[in-house]
């Protein structure tokens, strides 16, 4: 029972990281109908930037803030420079461009920082917490991970709901053509969407790197699971991204804890296929007229 509690809480902590990646993918998908395969690589680059800043200044939070800002800028620059030209091209071209970015960014990270595994500091203590005599199996830092993603998700939801920028984002995602006719500068809105996605991806990188070490391809497996979480939740739904991330994190933590880590990817596949067999467009999708 105690073990079960530990695996559940640990799974929530990992699940929130998958949820953050899923959220950034959903944000881009809703705006531009593009799946950003380079999201993980972008997070690796911003986390390396954070590490450099931390090593120079000695302050974790300076690195944290600068990495988030770098994610914001990186997302905007990528949208403007390489995504804009393929936005109205065949959909697979955008896929290959983001794959090219994934390869390019990981290559650049390897050139600048080398291929060796580096440890990345955690924001808070990583020693286990106890509730009375019960070991919870999570640390202060795990609580911070879950809380940070939750705060960002809520802030994002509030922005979408209550600010004019959020209204423009929703309008552009709903119908770009009509939004443009009504005076929304759709181009800028899409850039904003990519920038926000870059920020959330950077957050995910900062939060997961203490647990995974940092190397040029360290986010690849996290990205795959974040993508899986987004697909489970339904790519159009931010709430689905969070729920999908939590489901995946908890299920995979049970599998890893009880059955062994080799089986984790297989059970990720099983969970994904099981959800998609029941709801082919994810848990929180709005059902359209059925296609054949």
């Amino acid at each position, binding site marked *: 029972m105690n073990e079960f509690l530990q695996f559940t809480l640990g799974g929530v902590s990992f699940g929130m990281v998958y949820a953050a990646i899923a959220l950034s993918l959903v944000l881009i998908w809703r705006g531009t*109908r593009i799946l950003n395969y380079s999201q993980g690589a972008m997070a690796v680059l911003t986390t390396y930037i954070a590490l450099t800043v931390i090593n120079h200044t000695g302050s974790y939070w300076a690195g944290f803030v600068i990495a988030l800002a770098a994610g914001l800028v990186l997302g905007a620059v990528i949208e403007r420079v390489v995504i804009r030209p393929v936005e109205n091209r065949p959909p*697979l071209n955008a896929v290959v461009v983001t794959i090219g970015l*994934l390869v390019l960014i990981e*290559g650049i990270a390897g050139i600048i920082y080398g291929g060796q595994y580096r440890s990345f500091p955690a924001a808070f203590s990583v020693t286990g917490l106890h509730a009375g005599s019960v070991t919870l199996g999570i640390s202060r830092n795990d609580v911070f991970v879950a809380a940070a993603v939750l705060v960002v998700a809520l802030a994002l939801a509030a922005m*979408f*709901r209550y600010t004019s920028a959020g209204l423009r984002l929703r309008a552009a995602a709903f119908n770009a053509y009509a939004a443009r006719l009504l005076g929304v500068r759709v181009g800028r809105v899409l850039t904003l969407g990519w920038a926000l996605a870059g920020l959330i991806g950077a957050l995910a990188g900062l939060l997961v790197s203490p647990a995974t070490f940092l190397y040029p391809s360290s986010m690849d497996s996290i990205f795959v699971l974040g993508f899986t979480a987004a697909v489970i939740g339904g790519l159009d739904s931010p709430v689905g991204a969070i729920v999908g991330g939590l489901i995946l994190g908890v299920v995979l933590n049970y599998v890893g804890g009880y059955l062994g880590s080799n089986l984790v990817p297989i059970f990720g*596949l099983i969970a994904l296929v099981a959800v998609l067999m029941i709801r082919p467009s994810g848990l929180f999708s709005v059902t359209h007229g059925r296609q*054949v």
Partner: protein
Amino acid sequence: MTLLRHLIAALVAGAVIWALSVQLNAFRDFQMAEIAVYVVAIAGLSLLIGLSGQISLGQGAFMAIGAYTAALLMLHLNWPLWAVFPASAAVTALAGAVVGLAAARLSGPYLAGATLMLAVALPSLASQFPGVFGGDQGLSVTVIAPAALGATFPPTRWLAWVCALAALITLVILANLGRSRVGRNWRAIRDDPIAAALSGLNVGALRVLAFIVSAACAGLAGAMLAITTSLVSPGSFTLSLSIALLAGAVLGGLGTLTGALWGALVIVLVPTYVTDVATSHGLSGGVAANIPIAAYGVVLIIVMLVFPYGIQGGLRRLAGQFLPTSPTRPGSPGQRAPAGEHAEDLDSPYRRPPVSEHQEEGTS
């Protein structure tokens, strides 16, 4: 008539390959075998995406199935190559049928996500059952050239011949399949599944069939890769293999077999070429190791920005500018479209789906 044309093209290509392989050194022969492997895998994927309209990021997983099948057959049963190749393709086709049954219900990013997870999950099974699959070390396979060729015959040249022959046979079969009724039906379900179903086509069965054919190609490519690299291990079938195959298919030009060749050439030759340049300029190990990766990424991005319809599409457009009559078939809709308007070509896999997909209220 079509069959004859394809056979003649294959014979000419075979003669060119033979002439090349005799001229080249052992390493270039090895690369030729590698290119043949990628051509087969990319051609299958290109057919799946370009003709039937389903995306797959799991082609590398199917290659793993084919490679492990080949290794097990050769290690335990000592099957000869001519039997191992079709057997690997058949076993993988069976796996493709299972995946295809699940995939026929999915579309777009959801199918991409499911096949992506397949590419990650399947090779990890090899580590879970080390007794059968040799764990992370993998299984080693050795193929020796027949004694009749002489003792000094370079073994990589034999590999190049075997792989090129298998690739040519596969391409002839795929070329005919694409021109057949099945190929036309695939194009129909790609462009408008509802209209195709109303015309009496079984959309689900056609989608599964496309997955089976594509998986069979990947299985054959996996078997070819097993004998080329003489090792089958989970490390050969990473996610980056599946991603490289998808990139190759789109780079070359979807739905065209010549495009598969361009894609394979880019994937095999660009990284080695850039490594040569980097090391010859005396760059340090870490930088030299990563520059090919970065350059490969740059090539992917630039080709997509410059040739939106793939290399083959770009070449066709160039040919269309110099030889105004040649690229369009008589009576085809392309005749009316101005040069460069490929998106209007009814036969093109690049038409965007109708815009009405995204109708719901965008609340969070």
